[in-house]
């Protein structure tokens, strides 16, 4: 570990030590966010251990994406602290977060359809010599890296537009990991995908887990998939985290019941109001 924060007592204050005494990759403390009259997040507490995969589930509009966008520096929180590797940080921009090793893969993937796979891989981190793009070097590096990650595409020269949903998702994830992300935020990486494509991504995430140097937060809707790849699950309801369990201690049934109960309550409230 060359990581300055981990295992180095100079940086680790008691407040940021997790239960087993190691430094968390990421801690979110008392974070709140409002958009006008809407409370998107209320006093959020969340932690992510080194090499852990955390599943973030919850209803549409519960605040999952807002939380993710705060963690990647897109939004800034109204209050609360974010602690990365034992050090409090104020994320000023996406670039700033990225320089700290936090990278997000959004639902829309932020891929440029018209550009080739390798240009997308290196977007905003291009290799340049004398102001000119080193296309050959980027092409070779992209090909080698995607092979190593087991991502199957016809050619790194293909425009991203002509790839399948799973391939595009894989490239977006590979791009984030390749850029040396230590904390990876995945916003619904499995949405709108067939079983074959889901397998590609699950493989990729498992591979990252085996390496152990990347900690991941995944937003997902399919509880079966969440429990399969995640070590721990947090449930977000109305801007608050209402459940925090290890995957081994919960089940699809339990998570389903909680969400169904929430729907019932919403329905009852409506009926009472009407």
């Amino acid at each position, binding site marked *: 570990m060359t990581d300055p924060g981990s295992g180095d007592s100079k940086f680790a204050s008691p407040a940021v030590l997790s239960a087993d005494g190691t430094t968390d990759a990421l801690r979110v403390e008392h974070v709140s966010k409002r958009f006008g009259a809407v409370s998107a997040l209320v006093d959020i507490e969340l932690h992510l251990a080194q090499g852990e995969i955390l599943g973030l589930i919850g209803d549409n509009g519960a605040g999952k994406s807002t939380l993710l966008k705060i963690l990647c520096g*897109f939004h800034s929180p109204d209050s609360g602290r974010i602690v990365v590797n034992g050090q409090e940080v104020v994320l000023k921009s996406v670039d700033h977060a990225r320089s700290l090793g936090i990278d997000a893969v959004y639902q829309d*993937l932020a891929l*440029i359809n018209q*550009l080739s796979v390798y240009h997308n891989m290196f977007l905003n981190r*291009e290799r340049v010599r004398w102001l000119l793009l080193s296309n050959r070097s980027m092409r070779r590096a992209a090909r080698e890296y995607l092979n190593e990650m087991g991502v199957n595409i016809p050619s790194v020269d293909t425009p991203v*537009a*002509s790839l399948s949903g799973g391939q595009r998702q894989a490239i977006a994830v590979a791009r984030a990991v390749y850029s040396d992300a230590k904390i990876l935020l995945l916003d619904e990486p499995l949405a709108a995908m067939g079983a074959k494509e889901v397998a590609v991504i699950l493989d990729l995430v498992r591979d990252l887990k085996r390496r152990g140097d990347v900690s991941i937060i995944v937003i997902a809707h399919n509880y079966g998939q969440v429990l399969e790849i995640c070590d721990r699950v947090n449930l977000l309801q109305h801007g608050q985290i209402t459940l925090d369990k290890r995957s081994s201690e919960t089940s699809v049934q339990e998570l389903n019941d909680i969400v169904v109960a929430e729907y019932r309550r919403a329905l009852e409230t409506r009926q009472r109001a009407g």
Partner: protein
Amino acid sequence: MSDTAQRAVGTLGEPPPRPATARGPGAQLRQALAFAGRQRELTVLVVVVLLVVYFGFISNIGRSSFFTSVNIINLSQYAAPIIIIAIGETLLLVCGEIDLSPGFVYSFAPFLMYFLVVDDGFPVILAIFVTLLMGLVTGWVNGLLTVTLGLPSFIATLGTGFVLLGITLTTSNATQASIPPAAVGIGKWIGSYSYSEIIWAVVLVVIFHVIFTRTRWGLYTIAVGGNLLGAREAGINVARIKYGNFMITGVLGAFVGLQIAFQTSVIDPSAGGYTPMFLAVAAAVIGGTAMLGGSGTMIGAFLGSVMLTVLNIGFSLIGISAYPVNLIFGGTILVAMIANGQLDRLRLAGGRR
């Protein structure tokens, strides 16, 4: 070029994809069209060559020839301003914007130089520099209006264009001016020599081709036009790219204005306007630039400009009056754009596996 060559080799090396070839001549035609779509510049080049051969042949039977040096100079001087403005419009169209004002920057530029030299006693070089700076500032204002204030560029640049037209007509009293004697010397290099304009145009195309295809600026211009939100999420400074491309277009517009004034030896308030700008946009689109952003080429814009030039000069050369020429012109632009749209569709279909 090497990319397309590689791709072609790659396709040959692979086993024939899918049973598409088995569907007979219809499928073959589709494949040929898809290939033409991939090689957009090549298609336009073929059309240009066919037009040149046609007009060369026809005009040799008639009284004047297409290949006389007078006519070639004529062609080059007609094409150069379109090419140079088309460079800027290509950059803007690719990043998802358009600029209607460069024709009016073009009108005002030589007057500004004239006033600075004759009224304010500026050295010519400094006056030219300030004139180009005016183009840059106009581009910056266009960026401010569209990027920072969020106006659609079609409306914003229409506004700045009219403002510039007003300034030109007011300050010049709508009367012509002559080139200040002190500027005649340097003017030769900018526009008065027979071939100075086309040489500038070609040099600028080469420079911007490299910038567009081989630098981050070009890559980001495509990224911003292809997926604005995605580009922003990737950390690209979207505003900087758009501002910059507006400013480049402004400077190019001012430069063309100076060139035309030097070439015609007169500063004319009716020079410029919408025509050169619309021709430039048409040239860019004929050359394969997507109106909705995300793709385009400088070589295509160059060839599109040459095609419009050959059409216009060619028809007047073979004695067709100027009125029906406009008909042919409009028809050609429409056909080229429809073809582009269809070829794009086929290209995407062909690219999928």
